[in-house]
């Protein structure tokens, strides 16, 4: 039953919602809207009852793995615990029900929260000018690159080139392309860090920006970041820090302190968004003061009213790039991030990062004999193990391990990313998992590597679905349900 689609439950005339009787004098619809604009038929949506909906989607939910139910060490995604208090507090009236065109003086409490969020994000970044507008990290990247473009345009400089290392997230080049830049990739090095000499060769007066994730996607800190930043700054370019991995360094080191000029956050990752089965995210950016005038509108400023009271105002930066989205931003997610930061405080923020690092290194240590990490003696919040030895010796691939883990109640790590590591398994346990869980996870991997490759190629064995045919899905796309003809 649980594999039925909601459309299978439909029965003509069945319904869930009831609407009130109309309490105003009515006129015939056709008098108000000419027939040519009106639909000729009812919408072909499913016709189901409320209990249908509840049972269907409750049962569907149990086919998911999630942080609330399973260890979810999906590298680069920071699948940490999502505090339940955030869900309660983000639904308070005065927050959840404020119209985007509400007047500022009737939402001072909400603006105070968002203003404080700007400040906290600026402080953690070491970059004081913050825009909360971007809807997700990728939009944050794009926004920052547009800010950079506006800055250079303003200075009369024509810089077309954006550099990024081979291990970068795909969003980096994609965002740069949409912002109109040319993308230049730095080759990978054996130690997993940026190739400074190569960078020195590529950086020139046409360089607008270097985009770098730090710690990088291998979980390593780019030790030479200060030197790297100097190279870029010396040619007049800007350094962009992809903040996807901020969970490793918050409270320990700051992008603004190690040479970054711009960065984005992933509030749904670092600050427990939550992830929502693929979003919504929130991707605020923080930039240096000289870039503030270009930020998208509006930002929030604090002022003192005539009566001496503090007032928060929505302000348009003087040389703003405009807007990258409608309305203010993903406020619902920002509220959760605010709750998180207010719960942790300065000690907690640092401690969270430290324990993320502790957990990652512990997992790395207890796995090192079966799934060694390709780079680094120690890692930060995550590491990339490689199954290439297993693949060679036992024909067991990273994918096999990932799929088989599901049978044991563990979500899989990120596999085959970053591309610079063969048979990559990218593991990010986060700080909100216990030693006991990490031990059980490592023990399970150990058991899996002792199973036969053939058995593993067919894993998972205990879930309702196993190894979907992606090729068929792409060749003959079926992207929506259609009623069966003749039924």
């Amino acid at each position, binding site marked *: 039953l649980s594999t039925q689609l909601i459309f299978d439950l439909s029965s003509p005339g069945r319904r869930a919602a009831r609407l009130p009787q109309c309490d105003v004098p009515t006129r015939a619809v056709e008098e108000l809207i000419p027939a040519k604009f009106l639909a000729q038929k009812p919408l072909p949506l499913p016709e189901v009852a409320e209990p249908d909906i509840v049972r269907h989607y409750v049962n569907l939910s149990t086919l998911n793995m999630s942080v609330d139910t399973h260890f979810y060490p999906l590298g680069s995604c920071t699948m940490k615990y999502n505090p339940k208090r955030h869900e309660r507090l983000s639904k308070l009236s*005065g927050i959840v029900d404020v119209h985007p065109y509400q007047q500022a003086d009737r939402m001072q*409490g909400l603006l105070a929260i968002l203003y404080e969020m700007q400040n906290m994000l600026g402080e953690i970044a070491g970059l004081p000018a913050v825009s909360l507008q971007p809807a997700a990290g990728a939009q944050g990247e794009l926004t920052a690159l547009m800010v950079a473009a506006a800055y250079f345009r303003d200075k009369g400089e024509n810089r077309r080139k954006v550099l990024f290392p081979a291990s970068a997230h795909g969003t980096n080049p994609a965002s740069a392309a949409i912002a109109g830049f040319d993308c230049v990739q730095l080759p990978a090095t054996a130690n997993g860090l940026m190739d400074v000499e190569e960078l020195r060769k590529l950086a020139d007066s046409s360089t607008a920006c270097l985009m770098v994730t730090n710690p990088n996607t291998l979980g390593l800190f780019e030790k030479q970041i200060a030197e790297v930043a100097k190279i870029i700054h010396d040619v007049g370019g800007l350094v962009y820090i992809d903040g996807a991995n901020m969970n490793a360094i918050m409270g320990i080191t700051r992008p603004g302190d190690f040479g970054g000029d711009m960065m984005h956050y992933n509030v749904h990752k670092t600050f427990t968004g939550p992830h929502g*089965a693929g*979003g919504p995210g929130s991707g605020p950016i923080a930039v240096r003061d000289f870039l503030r005038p270009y930020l998208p509108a509006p930002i929030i400023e604090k002022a003192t009213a005539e009566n001496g009271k503090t007032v928060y105002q929505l302000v348009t930066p003087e040389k703003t790039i405009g807007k990258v989205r*409608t309305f203010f931003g993903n406020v619902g997610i920002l509220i959760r991030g605010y709750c998180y930061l207010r719960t942790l405080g*300065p000690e907690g923020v640092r401690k969270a990062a430290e324990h993320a690092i502790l*957990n990652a290194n512990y997992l790395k240590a207890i796995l090192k004999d079966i799934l060694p990490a390709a780079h680094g003696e120690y890692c930060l919040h995550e590491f990339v193990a490689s199954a290439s030895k297993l693949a060679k010796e036992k024909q067991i691939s990273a994918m096999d391990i990932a799929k088989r883990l599901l049978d044991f109640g563990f979500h899989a790590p990120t596999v085959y990313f970053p591309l610079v590591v063969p048979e990559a398994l990218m593991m990010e346990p986060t700080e909100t998992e216990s030693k006991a869980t990490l031990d059980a996870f490592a023990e399970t991997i150990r058991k899996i590597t002792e199973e036969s490759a053939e058995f593993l190629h067919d894993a998972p064995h205990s879930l309702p679905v196993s190894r979907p045919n992606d090729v068929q899905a792409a060749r003959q*796309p079926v*992207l929506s349900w259609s009623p069966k003809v003749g039924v």
Partner: protein
Amino acid sequence: MSYLFATATEEQAMLSRIGVDSIDQLLQQIPKPLQLDKLLDLPPALSEMELEQHLRQLASQSSGSTSRTCFQGGGAYDHYIPSVVDEITGRGEYYTAYTPYQAEASQGTLQAFFEYQTMICQLTGMQVSNASLYEGGGSVSEATLMAMRTTGRTGRVVIAGALHPEYTQVLRTYVGHTSTEVIHIPVGSDGTVDLTKLAGAIDENTAAVIVQNPNFLGNIEDLAAIADLTHAKESLMVVSTDPISQGLLARPGDLGADIVVAEGQSLGIPLQFGGPYLGILACRNDFIRRMPGRLIGETIDRTGGRCFVLSLQAREQHIRRDKATSNICTNQGLMALRATMFMAQMGPQGFRETAELCLQKAHYAATQIAALPGYTILFSETPKFKEFVIQAPQSAQTLIEKVAKAGVDIGPALSQFAPIPGMADTENLLLVAVTEQRTKAQIDHLVNLLK
């Protein structure tokens, strides 16, 4: 610390297994000069109880639609959110999962999004929908970029009439740095796009004609006529629609739209000061491989059973990188789920009745306000759905403040978007939206306040 696991004892055991003495030693990867030598300047930690007191105190200093009467419009609306929406999306299995990379561990999400894609097709009359974009304005931009990719034309895009000013602004931000010309055709005296001027603006280099329906001023556009003009130049028509209006209005797909976008907030998503909302994007089958955003596809698994997967990822940034159809990665999954619950709960009859209530109540309100001395409903002869423009006898801003004192919110004032192509003096103009939630008593109260 809150949410941390390792106790001091465990921490020691873990460190010794790692082979270091302290966490500090693990941090040595970070050059010492780059490390902070003090704590961040953040406010002190709050316990759960204190945090709740703090948030409640701040929330009490903001005005939400729950405790007030909301006639505000302009792209976000106070429609009713059925309890089923909150119940389902409040389940940790949905909201604490992520993008369904591992299909076997994500069939719940995948099937729900497949159902979402289908319902969006049913709602818009299109053949294929993606699994969500950020919000309505961004969807217009993404649709425009997609139209450029599809047509191979980058010379011009044409905005037909009263597109939401913020959508226009976002579009200009997205294409501002390119050579693409954005032509904005104003509305005529009836508050809909001037078709003659529009016809003149569409040329052989025009990738897309973008039209909002009902438009930003609340007026219903003649989509079929616009489609004819657009297709005459083999350009693509992008329609931005109000999902609730589809309970009554003919679907864009049935009137010739090539790409349909929408702000999905009305479909069970709270106002929450502008986000997270839901970007809807649907199109014709032949554009599938040009689409931005995630797509969920049906396939079979190893044993031949039906299942769902992230499909056509070759379009996406994590594979195609700078050649991708979009840079979008994280989308608005949970909001798409909310919309799915909403659409399932409403069904055809619920949509129809909701739309009728909006229609009737908005027209009742408009009629009552029009009867007030000094007030005019602009474009009163033009068909409308749930929103309309008032010309007031005083500045719109003053009027908004006046009724706000009585707990009623109207607006936005059009002056905050000035200039609006085709609208000269906006000082005394404002929008009023009337949803199915507004009662006769509330409308009469507003009318009284306006006196």
